[in-house]
């Protein structure tokens, strides 16, 4: 990327902060059994799912909000949140893009998300989730010809209940943690993907999440299953309007990879981060976990976290199948008063399992960035290996970078290697650039891009460009 481009980006503010004026069907704030029953009824769900939601609600009511993360924020009033909001639409919902409210299409157009036919050129199938519901999914026919199921969660409930009943909650049970349990009770939509045995998904799949309505939370749930020998690459993006109030996002993502299957899950997280004084922004509490259930399975998480006022997120891998592989590549940037406590867990159960963790944290302004990771080798993980590289870059005397790794090894043949470093941009690197006529801000952007290169190269090309743009924007004003 050329430096004039970065310069232009650096001078821009959060560009996805607009509000779409659309009539919505929003339930009153508060959470009890009647709300859960209402959501389930609106979705026309089978009894097993309602029962599951209600069990989750009862469990959640007995839980305490966790406060072990390196985060400080005002208490969340869970009773003041509306747990369902959806754009009003014809009773049966849109059958095709032509039936979708033009205002919604315009919203995604503005966000640069390819929903229209011209999007064929992009070669990415998109599921667009607006507040609590999916409003459009593209390329369903082409995918279906390959046997791939890619649809909104609520559609999967109707059309593929057996698959759902088998896999829902099998990786992240409804008792897992405070936010995942809340999500299990009130999740409203999300994406469902099933790739049958031996199929390589013919295109990238993408879900674009948008929070629009005020005083609501977003609680989507994504479930991806790659059957034996299957491959799928899934991209996830998200934005929200600029508001002075904080909004809650508590999502759950479950991945299941069977024998020889591979799932590549990429995220560019760009929720509204709040203003330069730390006012507003999304509270992003997300549970993401994949299970390599079969031999030689592979799950790869790549994330670029630039948005949200608060990020609490640990995409993890349970490496159960022999020779299975887990990967985690992450860039987390915080500026102004953003806070992130993010990392991963790699739990090695099967023999000869391998995992790689590369985490790059960048802290600017008053931002606080924490890497928290667990590498666990169980007694059965003979010959397992992990390598972790965790680097932090500090850009401001008021910023913070923190590293909290946990290494637990119970097998004498397993190997864990962990390295971490924290530094600021070196004077030598800056001097080298300045000496060649490159301005300070451009030089910093170049150095930061280089710092993140090992992660960006793991992203699909379209996302890599977007991620690099976002990184420059999110560090706006950090160089002084």
């Amino acid at each position, binding site marked *: 990327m050329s430096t004039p481009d970065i310069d232009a980006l650096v001078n821009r503010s959060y560009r996805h902060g607009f509000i779409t004026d659309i009539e919505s069907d929003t339930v009153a704030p508060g959470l009890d059994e009647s709300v859960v029953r209402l959501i389930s009824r609106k979705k026309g769900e089978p009894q097993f799912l309602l029962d599951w939601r209600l069990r989750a609600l009862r469990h959640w009511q007995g839980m305490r909000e966790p406060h*072990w993360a*390196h985060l400080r924020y005002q208490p969340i009033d869970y009773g003041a949140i509306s747990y369902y909001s959806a754009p009003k639409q014809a009773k049966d919902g849109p059958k095709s893009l032509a039936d979708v409210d033009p205002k919604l299409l315009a919203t995604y157009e503005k966000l640069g998300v390819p929903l229209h036919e011209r999007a064929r050129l992009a070669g990415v199938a998109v599921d667009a989730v607006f507040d609590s519901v999916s409003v459009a999914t593209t390329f369903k026919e082409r995918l279906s010809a390959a046997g791939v199921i890619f649809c909104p969660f609520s559609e999967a409930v109707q059309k593929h209940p057996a698959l759902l009943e088998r896999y829902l909650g099998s990786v992240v049970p409804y008792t897992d943690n405070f936010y995942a349990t809340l999500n299990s009770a009130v999740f409203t939509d999300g994406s469902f993907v099933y790739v049958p045995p031996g199929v390589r998904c013919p295109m990238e799949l993408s879900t674009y999440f948008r929070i629009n309505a005020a005083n609501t939370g977003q609680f989507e749930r994504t479930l991806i299953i790659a059957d034996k020998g299957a491959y799928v690459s899934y991209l996830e993006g998200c934005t929200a309007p600029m508001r002075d109030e904080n909004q809650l996002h508590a999502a759950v993502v479950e991945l299941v990879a069977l024998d020889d299957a591979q799932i590549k899950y990429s995220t560019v997280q760009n929720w509204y981060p709040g203003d330069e004084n730390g006012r507003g922004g999304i509270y992003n509490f997300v549970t993401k976990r994949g299970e390599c259930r079969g031999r030689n399975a592979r799950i790869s998480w790549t994330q670029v976290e630039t948005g949200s006022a608060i990020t609490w997120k640990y995409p993890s891998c349970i490496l159960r199948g022999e020779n299975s592989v887990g990967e985690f590549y992450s860039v987390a940037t915080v500026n102004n008063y953003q806070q992130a406590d993010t990392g991963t867990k790699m739990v090695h159960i099967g023999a000869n399992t391998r995992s790689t963790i590369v985490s790059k944290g960048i802290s600017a302004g008053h931002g606080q960035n924490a890497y928290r990771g667990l590498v666990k080798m169980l*007694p059965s993980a003979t010959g397992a290996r992990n390598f972790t590289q965790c680097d*932090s870059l*500090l*850009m*401001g*005397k*008021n*910023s*913070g*970078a*923190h*590293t*909290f*790794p*946990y*290494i*637990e*090894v*119970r*097998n*004498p*043949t*397993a*190997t*864990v*290697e*962990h*390295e*971490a*470093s*924290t*530094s*600021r941009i070196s004077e030598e690197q800056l001097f080298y650039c300045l000496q060649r006529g490159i301005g300070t801000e451009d030089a910093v952007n170049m150095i930061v891009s280089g710092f993140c290169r090992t992660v960006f190269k793991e992203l699909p090309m379209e996302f890599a460009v977007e991620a690099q743009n976002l990184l420059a924007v999110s560090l706006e004003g950090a160089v002084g």
Partner: protein
Amino acid sequence: MATPTTTHRSGIVDRIMRDYDAVAARLPDAAVTRAARGRSMHELARLGWPTTRDEQWRYTNLRAFERVAEFAPRVLTPASGDTAALELPPALPGFERLLYIDGVRDVAAARAPTRDTIVPETVWSAEQRLGLLCDMFATDVASLRIRGSSAIEVLFVTSAAAAGAACYPRLQLALEPGSQLQLVERHLGAPEIPTLVCANVAIELGRGAQLTHYRLQQCGVHTVFADTLSAQLTDEASYSVRQVAIGAASARTSAQVQLAGRGAAFSWQAIAVGRAQQVHDTALKVEHRAPDTRTDEVFRGIADEHARIAFSGHIHIAAAAPGADARQSLRGLIEGAGAEIDLRPRLEINTDQVKAQHGATTGALDENLMFYLLARGIDRSTARALLKWAFLGDVLRAIELPQLRSAAEHGAAGQLPDIMAIGALT
């Protein structure tokens, strides 16, 4: 003082309170004042007993502490003990020896505590709450104020008289500005005696003071050992710890070091070797509170058979500590199929003008190194023993006193019989 009531009370805390009430009137004020004991009791009641759900107690064998039959000390007053019955190590040349048996001084071999307050009363954090036990029950204290240059060996010995009860070694140390001290702190115990040993160490280093602190924990195999240390360093002070932990059935070390003065430097080099069902858990927190402060942490742990070795190294660099430099190197070696190593190298950094890095590895012996030795005709068992010895070598070599190093080496090798067999010891 009345036993406090609190919502944090648990069965074990109740038991501790009962044991305390039974002996409180007889505990000597010279070791800890009655008021301070009472404050500690209330603090323990407030904090409650730790659980493995607490981050800092996750790897401690708390059950071993909960199974302690009696928290009250049995020996309450200093005496002239029959030291001939104890197997004491030979005296270190040039060192003054102070001897404490079951938590009280041997009157022939230790000074009486001064009436001065050597260091201010320590406020133990939740991670160090076992220190409150020693504050409540301590029967004596080794209190030392150092001026100039000194070399002191403090032996804390557990005898058969303490079997089934508890003893509370206590050391308070203040180094005047510019002073230097070589301090050897050894915890020894007769084997086969199930005993709780709960030690507190509080240290203050004046400007430019230098302390080299050798710590050898060689308690008996049935001992439950807790060791709580607090150190405060002022400008240009330097504190080096060399710690060898090999004894006890279950041990927990909770240490906090504050680098409160500009240019203060701290070095921690430690090994822990466990076998059978031993559990060694160390939680070390270093706080950089002033500019240009330095920390260098090295830990090597070997877990054999079903042992568990855990080390948590937490370095906190405050915004007021620009120019801080912190390094951690933690390595674990698992030798037994049922053994476990848990490492937590933590960095918390709140300013950008720092250098901080850590590395942590755990696993089996390096196959490349093994191949190197095998290719030179060394048999496999000897090669393994040599590599294990080299693994511990970084820390053992840092013990500069030959006699003490030899004792540490023999202690470590005693845990690893194959090393003893190759005759690598000095």
